[in-house]
């Protein structure tokens, strides 16, 4: 099951991504840092890390990994279920992240985008990205049960 993103949503997402993808690493690192600080329960998934503080080497590296996933999603926006199949399997069978946390990370990605690109993160872009991240979360949850 895929959430329906209409043609306008997809166009907005692709255009905005083209603008911001050059800073993907910074976006990922900041979003992850914020999630770990603002929602401490998410730290339970990273108990094997040495340093969970904002901007630590591990946080930066993992932020980059997450944004690579987002880039994959943008490139596969016309069929997120297919495009994110292996990532869904990873999250379902190996990582077993409670899918409620996808919403939490999405919120922090939006906050970072608002901070870094206040003029471009208009209400129209905001709603398109909110829908997109919700669709990504849904696709990632596909294989859970």
């Amino acid at each position, binding site marked *: 099951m895929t959430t329906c993103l209409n043609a306008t949503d997809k166009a907005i997402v692709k255009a905005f991504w083209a603008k911001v993808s050059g800073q993907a690493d910074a976006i990922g690192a*900041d979003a992850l*840092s*914020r999630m770990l*600080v*603002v929602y401490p329960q998410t730290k339970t998934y990273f108990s094997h890390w040495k340093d969970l503080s*904002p901007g630590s080497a591990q946080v930066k590296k993992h932020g980059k990994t997450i944004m690579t996933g987002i880039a994959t999603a943008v490139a596969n926006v016309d069929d997120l279920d297919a495009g994110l199949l292996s990532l869904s399997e990873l999250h379902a069978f190996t990582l077993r992240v409670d899918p409620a946390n996808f919403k939490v990370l999405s*919120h922090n990605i*939006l*906050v970072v985008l*608002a*901070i*870094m690109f*206040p003029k471009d*993160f208009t*209400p*129209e872009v*905001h*709603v398109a990205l*909110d829908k997109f991240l919700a669709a990504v979360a849904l696709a990632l949850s596909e294989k859970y049960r």
Partner: protein
Amino acid sequence: MVRWTDKERSTIRALWEQINIDEIGPEALRRVLIVYPWTERYFGTFGDIFTVTAILQNSKVAAHGKVVLKAVGQAVENMDNIKDTYATLSRLHYEKLHVDPDNFRLLADCITIAVACKLRSALDPQAQAVWQKFLSAVVDAMSSQYY
């Protein structure tokens, strides 16, 4: 009752000082109506709020945004008594306005995003954490008189 450290109190006050109610209020309410369009159901008397352009230009939306954020200011002044501060408003939103309290959470998220656009890196991760703790207390208080 929510417990606040001295650092949290000063963080909230410092953030609030940088927040222009006349700017952030309208911005937050516009975003709520655009990002979560079902919230339009509560504003039947506001005229045209059915397109992005109409919402952005609607003067009643802007005026009401200011009213809402001014009310948030009451929590800043009464941080040790947030629940009592909003008891009457909460009852009003339940009995007369019939607002689903989940919408308070959506509005809180839009206020945070509007604040993030304005304050940018001044809203660092720790400040965001305290700010969201504060807004959660407001949301809980607004939901408290639903029975």
